[in-house]
């Protein structure tokens, strides 16, 4: 029996962390993530967890201490947002390269500047090539579910990679919703006892972790890292299957919403999927064959699976909540468009950069996207490869 509660996204993730009961959490506050570690620190102070909580002086130290703890053999977590993630940068890459199964909730916030604290995806999109698995959440329920599943994915011996679990800043992190949580013992049973590989604290089997690695072997170790990311795909699906048995909630690499016989489709990540699903329902009621594909797992990128899901659609719009500033389009667009390259007579595809710096995206915005797609599906012609949706012209 799961428990129905009202929680914000931040409260839900802090609750997941309490149930996970990590050995070490090293964290630094940053809006809109602050509440996660603030609530978690109260669990530490009140003896609800056994965690060693390290109050570091910066995010660079937060990730460094987390890496150190993980290398020592601890189940280690941290959490951050935006500039905090940016400040962690060099150690974020090192965590992945050292193959340390750290789980880090990231509350998506626009990366400065100009200074902004509201949601867009520029922070985690910037880290898309850091070697971390990236799982996006539509709502507080998914953030909670993803955080728990992330442990099992990260710690799988065929993977051993760190995982970012994201949720949209304020829109999810600070909005209360009704959701279900599991009983503590069910979470503990699901994640199991952590058995670290080559822990530094195993003094009977001394090892060196993180030695210099030059021309002779560095390439081979990066090749291993690339393979681990490939291995993650089936592991994510296996873990999701086990989690569905426990909760009834099913997760894949992405969610297909009313994609059967869809002629036009939107590809989206995070909370905007909720808004867009409501528009899809509206359009379907009007007889429009509209669908939606919500990417849950952005790294590893499910290219073949997305190509298969979109191959029969006539027109696809990718919704990017960040810009690559490559003078072409957003990061999701680049990957989705590339995934469709080998599809014969595949869909026309366009990009919408939206919601930058927390700019609201309303059903009206999404309706204009589907209206554009209907026109493209009809004529086969793309007028605007990229649209800045909701910007003042």
């Amino acid at each position: 029996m799961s428990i129905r509660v009202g929680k914000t996204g931040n409260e839900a993730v802090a609750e997941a962390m309490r149930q996970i009961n990590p050995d070490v959490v090293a964290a630094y506050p940053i809006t809109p993530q602050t509440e996660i570690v603030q609530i978690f620190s109260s669990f530490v102070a009140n003896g609800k967890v056994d965690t060693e909580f390290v109050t570091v002086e910066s995010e660079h130290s937060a990730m460094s201490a987390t890496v150190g703890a993980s290398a020592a053999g601890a189940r280690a977590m941290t959490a951050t947002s935006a500039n905090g993630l940016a400040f962690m940068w060099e150690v974020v890459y090192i965590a992945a390269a050292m193959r340390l199964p750290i789980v880090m909730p990231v509350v998506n916030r626009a990366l400065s500047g100009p200074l902004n604290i509201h949601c867009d995806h520029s922070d985690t999109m910037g880290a898309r090539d850091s070697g971390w698995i990236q799982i996006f959440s539509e709502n507080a329920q998914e953030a909670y579910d993803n955080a728990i599943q992330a442990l099992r994915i990260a710690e799988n011996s065929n993977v051993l990679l760190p995982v970012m679990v994201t949720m949209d800043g304020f829109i999810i992190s600070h909005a209360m919703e009704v959701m279900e949580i599991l009983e503590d013992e069910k979470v503990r049973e699901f994640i199991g006892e952590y058995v670290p590989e080559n822990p530094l604290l195993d003094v009977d089997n001394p090892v060196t972790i993180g030695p210099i690695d030059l021309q002779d072997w560095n390439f081979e170790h990066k090749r291993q890292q690339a393979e681990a990311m490939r291995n993650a795909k089936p592991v994510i699906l296996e873990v999701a299957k086990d989690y569905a048995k426990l909760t009834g909630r099913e997760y894949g690499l992405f969610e297909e919403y009313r994609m059967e016989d869809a002629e036009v489709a939107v590809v989206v990540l995070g909370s905007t999927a909720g808004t867009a699903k409501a528009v899809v329902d509206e359009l379907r009621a009007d007889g429009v064959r509209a669908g939606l594909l919500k990417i849950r797992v952005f790294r590893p990128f499910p290219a073949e699976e997305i190509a298969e899901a979109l191959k029969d659609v006539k027109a696809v719009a990718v919704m990017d909540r960040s810009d690559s500033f490559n003078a072409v389009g957003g990061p999701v667009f680049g990957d989705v468009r590339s995934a469709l390259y080998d599809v014969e007579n595949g869909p026309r595809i366009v990009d919408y950069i939206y919601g930058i710096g927390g700019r609201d995206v309303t059903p009206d915005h999404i309706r204009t996207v589907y209206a554009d797609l209907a026109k493209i599906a009809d004529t086969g012609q793309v007028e605007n490869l990229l649209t800045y949706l909701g910007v003042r012209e």
Partner: protein
Amino acid sequence: MSVPKDAGWKDVPKAGRILEPGCADKYETGGWRTYRPVHIEENCINCLFCWIYCPDQAILVEDGKFKGIDYAYCKGCGICAKECPGKRGNKALKMVLDEEA
């Protein structure tokens, strides 16, 4: 743990981890030397300063006497030659260009 010469990425510990202590002697580190120390026996008083100061294990000693230099581990740092007192001001170790030695 020595890695066989024909090992590939699937055969080695992940992330460059070294799973065994004290394994430096299985990894030849002298390959990037520019200068090498050369021993001049008539100037050697067997003080073994070279053995004491060598940061690696490149000075070989037998029965308390200088025996030779293990070039597999000598990186050509020159500390041995610098510290060598020699005999009457003539050093027993001098550094010469590796390819000319």
